[in-house]
């Protein structure tokens, strides 16, 4: 039984409704919220600032430090609060993705801390997290060569779809579900992060990247608009 109609009725190349806002954590140097439908991420950036302990410093340029964490009540089966292997892995790959955009040569021995938290999850959480973090970094005034836009592309049996939900992730018919999370330098389109789980051939994968890149352009427009929206000043 092929996947001819998406569970929520979306077109195959359509993302869920996107909501984004900056300035959600007043204490932070920069912050943002980003949501793909029911998947919500918030990110806060502090820095550049001094990094302690000294042995972690890089004398040639500043380092980016990302921490990704899901809130205990973001999923059906409660996640015990505290660090997790999955959180640690996603923190690192998000760091690598965001690092391709940030320019920290002028901040040797410093650190820029990025905190990502997920209060509500419906798959594609790392993508929402990276999108929120990218906004927060720009909002914080960290020099960047470009924004980073992240999106997931799935294959349900043989059908490619953009922005995967949990129900789609759990699809078991035919070839089952394949999930590809990818992030791009928004303007240039260079790929800065990819993770894949499932079964997919090279032709399908090339198509998946094309779809992801197209979707990322639309997401980027929303990211840009979010940063440009200045609240009415009186």
């Amino acid at each position: 039984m092929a996947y001819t109609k998406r569970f929520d009725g979306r077109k195959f190349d359509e993302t869920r409704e996107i909501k984004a806002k900056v300035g959600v954590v007043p204490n932070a140097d920069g912050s943002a919220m980003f949501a793909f439908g029911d998947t919500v991420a918030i990110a806060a950036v502090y820095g550049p600032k001094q990094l302690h302990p000294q042995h972690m410093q890089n004398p040639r340029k500043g380092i980016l430090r990302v921490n990704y964490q899901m809130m205990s009540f973001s999923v059906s089966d409660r996640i015990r609060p505290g660090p997790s292997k999955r959180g640690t892995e996603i923190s690192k790959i998000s760091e690598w993705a965001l690092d391709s955009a940030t320019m920290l040569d002028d901040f040797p021995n410093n650190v820029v801390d990025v905190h990502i938290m997920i209060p509500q999850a419906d798959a594609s959480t790392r993508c929402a997290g990276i999108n929120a973090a990218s906004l927060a970094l720009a909002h914080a005034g960290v020099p960047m060569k470009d924004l980073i836009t992240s999106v997931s592309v799935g294959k349900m049996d043989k059908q490619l779809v953009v922005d995967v939900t949990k129900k789609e992730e759990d699809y078991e018919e035919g070839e089952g579900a394949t999930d590809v999370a990818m992030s791009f330098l928004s303007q240039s389109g260079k790929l800065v992060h990819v993770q894949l789980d499932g079964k997919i051939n090279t032709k399908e994968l090339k198509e998946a990247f094309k779809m992801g890149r197209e979707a990322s352009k639309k997401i980027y427009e929303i990211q840009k608009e979010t940063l440009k929206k200045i609240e009415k000043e009186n």
Partner: protein
Amino acid sequence: MIENLNLTADRIREYLEKGKRFDSRKVGEFRDISIECGISNKAEGSAKVKVGKTEVWAGVKMALAEPYADSPDKGNLMVSAELTPLSNSRYEYGPPKFDSIELGRLVDRGIRESGYIDFEKLCIEKGEKVWQVFVDVYSINDDGNLLDVAFIAALAALRHAKVPVYDKKEGKIDYDKPAKESMPLTENVPFNFSVYTCGGGIILDPTIDEESASEGRLVVAVIPKKPIQICSMQKSGEYSLVEEKFGEILDFIEDAHKTLFPKVQKLIDEAIKKAESAKK
């Protein structure tokens, strides 16, 4: 980072001696409070509370568990709090430090000692299976008084919470069936007051600058009987209190409770109503 703005702290204390605060509030007055429920559709109950710029999110999750040996017919409660580095760069990752632990334990004690949750109604099978209630609290922006704000968030999340459907045959939770039964709560609604001693005065709901300028605090949880009853108390900090001051603080709390408690209850009512209608 320049955080302890000592000069400002002196001014705060000086001003307070005249009974005044920088943002023109009265000493027993809370900043603007806003409450939103249903911030996570995967939680059994959830709430986002803002008091001034301080923001805390709380979520209630429930799971099946074995009862404790000394209470075979009662459900269990576990409260955890995280003072996140996201909310204030002075908090770090790693094993919970004292501040986080204290906050979690104080919220826990206030709820537990009040008898707010009807634990007997959370028993599924005596001695075998009960509901475990988890209340997890996260700071989102720290501009002072995290404990009181966290407590309000926990209350709102509990009131918003619905008990999931227990599939007796399978012996597990059926998340596909919509939860209809509310969390069993009593009329002993606890309310938490962190009273900070600052210079010669006492204040409620300090901003982070006022907190830094304070010597310590007395944390008191009360339940709305007539007269109000104290169900838990803790003194934090190295300062000392004379008996009269202590009495003054208790009167202060009783007075503040009269306006604050009904106000917060009403805000929670409205938040729940809004969350329910949004779901439809």
